[in-house]
């Protein structure tokens, strides 16, 4: 009979369940942001300007745009959401695609990388404004 005792949920497990919906929300927000903003940003800044398909904007103009506080806020918010999105999706790619077994470690590494990226974004964007 004693073997029928219902195990108490472990604290780590319950707190994880409370966080999980928030992570999914950030994943979705980052996914929408990436879907809407990344095509034009990648096309202009990673291809068209470096390769001269379109004349790159004047430095003074770009510096004024980047230096604006609203640009800082918008870019920081977008970059953090997209990093969380990427971390969350990559985490499940490792679980399902590569069948990585160390799930706790994978989660810590993925979200840790996103957090490090958010920290770097704050400093790099802050330094440019």
């Amino acid at each position: 009979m004693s073997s029928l005792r219902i195990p108490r949920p472990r604290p780590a497990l319950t707190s994880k369940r409370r966080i999980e919906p928030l992570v999914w929300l950030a994943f979705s927000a980052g996914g929408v942001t990436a879907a809407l903003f990344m095509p034009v940003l990648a096309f202009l800044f990673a291809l068209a300007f470096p390769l001269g398909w379109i004349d790159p904007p004047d430095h003074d103009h770009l510096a004024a745009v980047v230096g604006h506080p609203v640009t800082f806020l918008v870019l920081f918010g977008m970059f953090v959401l997209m990093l969380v999105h990427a971390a969350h999706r990559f985490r499940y790619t490792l679980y399902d695609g590569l069948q990585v077994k160390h799930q706790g470690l994978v989660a810590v590494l993925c979200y840790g990388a996103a957090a490090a990226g958010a920290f770097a974004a704050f400093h790099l964007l802050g330094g440019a404004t």
Partner: protein
Amino acid sequence: MSRAVDDLTYRRPVSIWWWTRKRSYFVFVMRELSSIFIAWLVLYLLLFVRAVGQGRTAYDDFLDAAASPWLVAINVVAFAFVLLHTATWFLLTPQAMVVRLRGRRVPGLVIIGSQYVGLAVVSAFIAWLVLR
């Protein structure tokens, strides 16, 4: 330990190359791998912004470096993955959420179409902001 005793179902081990056997599996894994390239482009754009903040010379140097064959190759691949992400994300939205307008369910095609309108508006705004 208790799990090994309770769960006696046999599971056939799955190869880690399972996704190469079918086109739809392959597209699924490619879609998931777009995350790496989204993260890369965020990093790239951050470095771009930093170069702009450092001044005219740093900006010109960054544009020169970004035209090097390796970076162009990476960014072409990254751009293709971004397009895959956008297309698949828009396609999945009607399945992930139900939109109702005056009590009527909005058809999936309308949701997908309006997202492309949103993409066009966002792209036009950013191009205008950067190029004016």
